[in-house]
Every structure is written in C-alpha cells, then in structure tokens.
C-alpha cells in the first residue's frame, strides 16, 4: 500500500499510548482516524511524522521504511501536517508562513543570494506567486501581509493547511481541522478537503466532527486506549458494537 503502519507501539515510561496498531492507507484516499479523547490519535501522527521514534513496529511509505527518520526528512519524503493546537510562526506574515513551507523546493544557496541578487529575486517572485495561489485556494489571499497569529481562529486553521500544502506533499496529516470552526466554515472545509484529494494528495485525518468524517472519509480506523478496535468504511464502523461501546463508555456520541 501507500502508507503502512505495522504493529506500531509507542510507550512513554509505563504508559502505552499506542498499542500494536496496524493500518494501511491507499494512494489518493481520505483516511479517517477516530476515537475517544486520549485514545492515541495524535500520538500516531507524531510517530508517523517523525517526532517520536516508535518503541516497536515499523512504518513504510511507498514501500520504503521511514520509521526512525528525523522529522524534516520525513517531510522531505512527501509528508505534511497540521497541528491540533495551531502552531503558526507567530512573528511572520501569512505569506511568509506559507513560504517557509516551500523551503525544501528553493534552490538558491546563500552564496548565490549574495552574488546574484537578481536570480534570487526572480525565484522569490516565482515562490510568492505560488504561495499566493495557495492562499487563494483557501480564500485568505487578502490577508497575505497580515501577521498570521492576528487572524481569527478559522483563518489561522486555513493558513496552517495552506502552509502544509506548500511543501507539495504526497500525503497530508490533518489533526482536527474542523475544531473551532462554525458550520459554514466546516462546509467550506469539506469542499477544500475533496479538492485537495482530487488534486492527487492523500489525506490522513484525525477528526471529532462525525458529520465531516462521514461525508469525506473513504475509510476509517477507530482507536480506543491506543488499540485499534475497528476499521472499514463509515457505515460498517458506525454499526460496530465495540465502537459504540467505546464511545458510550466515554459519554460521547458517534
């Protein structure tokens, strides 16, 4: 498959945050990862994107093993992500935030920048154009020169997604993209997710908004206490007795 997690386990001291999870994501699909709070969803993201080395198990991407690589190299293989609690570069403008995402595609070295300012400017212009078109996709181009963290919450989420896509990823990991959004904003997010998927980028998404999950995800994995308890399409998973109990036990509705 495209992205495979095999028997992935992550322990912090005595706590087992992720317990022997195996899952596969196909190219071009939207794969949902759901489960009650504290079930290990974000930890899986952090392991996949290289912040934690898994205690055991392995992760392979396009057939090559990537577990244990440093975070920036994993990004280099075509991963991008957003964060549950926004992590924008706080002193930068919206545009600069997105330009950082393009870092791995820029070519001019420092020496070149000093000796050939014209070429540098040309490249800058090209990158800026690309960044602006991404901002346009998310409808936030007008804020390009505003400080990113001064935008309202919903727009900050959009900046984060634009920044993630700026790395030109093959797969993007979205950690609760709908949290804090109102209904209109969530509807717009749905459209964007489908647009991203149609442009050929695989999406791996953690989300609590079940309406959104139901309407966009091609397949779903359900976690509880770090263990995989179900997987399949939304219809199958939502009828699964174990899943219903896991959610009922936590007094959350599916």
């Amino acid at each position, binding site marked *: 498959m495209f992205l495979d997690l095999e028997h992935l386990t992550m322990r912090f001291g005595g706590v087992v945050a992720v317990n022997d999870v195996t899952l596969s994501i196909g190219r071009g699909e939207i794969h949902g990862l759901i489960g009650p709070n504290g079930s290990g969803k974000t930890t899986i993201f952090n392991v996949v994107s290289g912040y934690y080395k898994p205690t055991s198990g392995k992760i392979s991407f396009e057939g090559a093993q990537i577990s244990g690589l440093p975070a920036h190299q994993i990004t280099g293989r075509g991963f991008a992500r957003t964060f549950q609690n926004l992590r924008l570069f706080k002193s930068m403008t919206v545009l600069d935030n997105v330009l950082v995402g393009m870092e791995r595609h820029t070519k001019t070295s420092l020496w070149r920048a000093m000796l050939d300012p014209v070429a540098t400017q040309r490249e800058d212009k090209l990158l800026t154009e690309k960044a602006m078109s991404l901002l346009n996709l998310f409808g936030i181009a007008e804020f390009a020169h505003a400080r990113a963290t001064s935008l309202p919450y919903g727009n900050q989420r959009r900046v984060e997604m634009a*920044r993630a896509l700026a790395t030109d990823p093959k797969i993007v990991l979205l950690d609760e993209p709908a949290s804090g959004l109102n209904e209109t904003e969530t509807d717009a997010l749905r459209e964007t997710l489908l647009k991203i998927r149609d442009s050929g980028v695989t999406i791996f998404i953690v989300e609590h908004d079940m309406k959104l999950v139901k309407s966009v995800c091609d397949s779903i994995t359900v976690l509880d206490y770090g263990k995989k308890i179900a997987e399949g399409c939304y219809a199958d998973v939502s009828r699964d007795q174990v899943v219903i109990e896991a959610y009922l036990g936590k007094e959350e509705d599916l």
Partner: protein
Amino acid sequence: MKNPSIIIKGVWVAIGTLALVAFPLVAPNRYVVHIVNMAGLYILLSLGLNLAMGYCGQINLALGAFWGVGAYTAALLNTHFGVPIWVNLPIGMVFAGVVGALIALPMLKVRSHYLALVTIGLAETINIILVNETWLTQGPLGISGIQMPTLFGIAIDGDERFYYLILTCVLIGFLVARQIVRHRIGRSFIAIRDDEVAAKAMGVNAAYYQILANSIAGVYCGAAGVLYAHLNTYISPDIFEFKSALYVLTMTLVGGMGSLAGSFVGGLGLPITQELLRGIGNWELVGYGIAIMLVVLFFPGGVIGITRRLQESSGIRWPWARKPTVEPSQLEEPNVSGP
C-alpha cells in the same frame, strides 16, 4: 526623476555617506575616534549575536570566546610569522566559525536556560585555556607587539585610518547580514525561533540551521577579534571573558533583538553613552543598571521596538523603514466563502 521618494532616499544616502567618511576629519580628538572604532567592533559582535539569537533563537553566551579565538589567531600568526591582517582576517573568521559550529553541537541537545549554562561553560573553558596555556598565549600577560596593517604602502597606523577599515567591515557585515535575513535562510531561522516543531514539519532541517547560525555568529565575532588585535596591538584574555558576552547581549537587547538596526543602535549607543557618563563614577553604573531594567520592564523590544511603536501610532515612516505589515484590524471583515 519621476519618483520623489527615490530622490529623498538618495539625499539620505549622500548625507549618510558624507557623514561617515568625514567623521575622523571632524572628530575633536583621537580618543573619540577610538571609541567609535570600538563601537564598530561591538556592532559586528552584536550583528553576529543578533543573527544567532535574535533571528534563530539560539541563546549564546559564548560570544566572548569566539571573539577571543579571532583575536588570538591574528595575534599569534602576526607575532610569530608576520602574517598581515589581510590574511588573518579570513583565517580568523574561519577558525571562529568552526568553533561556533562545534559549540553548536551540544546546543542541539539542550534547551533554554540549560543551553545558557552550556554556552557559559564552553566560554569559560576556552577562556581558561587562554589563561593557562602560557607556552602559546603567554597567559594573563597577553600578547603585545601586534603590527598595525599597511595597505598599498600606506600604513594604517592610527585610529583615524583604522576607522575606514572598520567602517568597510561593518558595512560589508551589515549587507551580508541583511542578505541572510531576507533570504530563505533568514526565514528558516525565524521559523525555528518561532516554533521549532512546526519548522521541522515544514521540512526545515533545524539542526543544520542552528549549527549554521552559530557558525555565522562565530564568523562575525572572529572578524571583530582580528580587527581588535590589529587595532590595539595588544590583547589579553580578560576582555574575552563571559562578561564581554553579557555586554554585547545587553547592547543587542537594548537596541532591539531580532532587528539588524537594533545592533547598530545598541552597538553605537551603549559604548558612547558609557563614555559620556564616565567620571560620575559608580552612580553612572547604577543609572546604567536602572536604565536596563526600565528597558526590559517597559520596552521589551528595545529602542527599535520603541521606534516601531511610534511609527505605528503616528503613521510616520522613517526613511529606512520597510513596508509595514498590515494588521487585520485595518482590513475588512473576512468573508466566509473559503473553507
């Protein structure tokens, strides 16, 4: 010319150039020129610190050690082998740059105040080597008899002539720093300072840039060290101590951390203010300390932070100011058609 702002800019540049070139000729005495020369060296040190700490967020109190490496490299090569400043300058810069990169290695593992301590420890260690390896450095006695440079047969033998050398180096140092800051390297530095985790997620190789930032700081301090050795013809370990790093840190913070102009304001302002206050004795230092506390408590952005605030509230644009960032309050309400 169609654009009046270009003319205004041109006038500013002309006035500035004239003032800079004429300064030693109109200065009241040699001592004043010497103070300004030292301020020039402090600007170089502060630019280095600013790139590493202000832009990349790398707390570095080992600055005095980089400075010492540059100065001792020049002093030893010159007194033993008669190597001129023109050769010492690149060698000293490379040496200090390498030391900067080496010091950055442990910095990758530790953070924040732990990092502050590690850099203090490394700086102290280098200083102790300077004091104790007397066969090489002559210990606390220092090294004297370093030659002042000559250029095309002209001896650069006094503060007035040395001024132009330092001026050139500071200008080059500033232009290079500006290019770094505007380049994607500067963007990556700021990304790492703002949020290292997110920077890595964007594919920024944080470790590489952190080493690079410290190495660049080393290069700047190395250059300042070589110039210092040849300007004063005598060096001793005490000026490369930890407290020198604190002094440079103070001027950078007072000027404005994370702003190249801040390095100029602090690097020029602090030594000159201290000279002006000399003679009042210890009360002067008490006032100096109180001033620092006031800056920290009320103007954490330093002098540059104050000018920025003034600029935003009054709408006046300084001739050298870049286009201000737009705050969303000035924009219309966001539309909700996007995602």
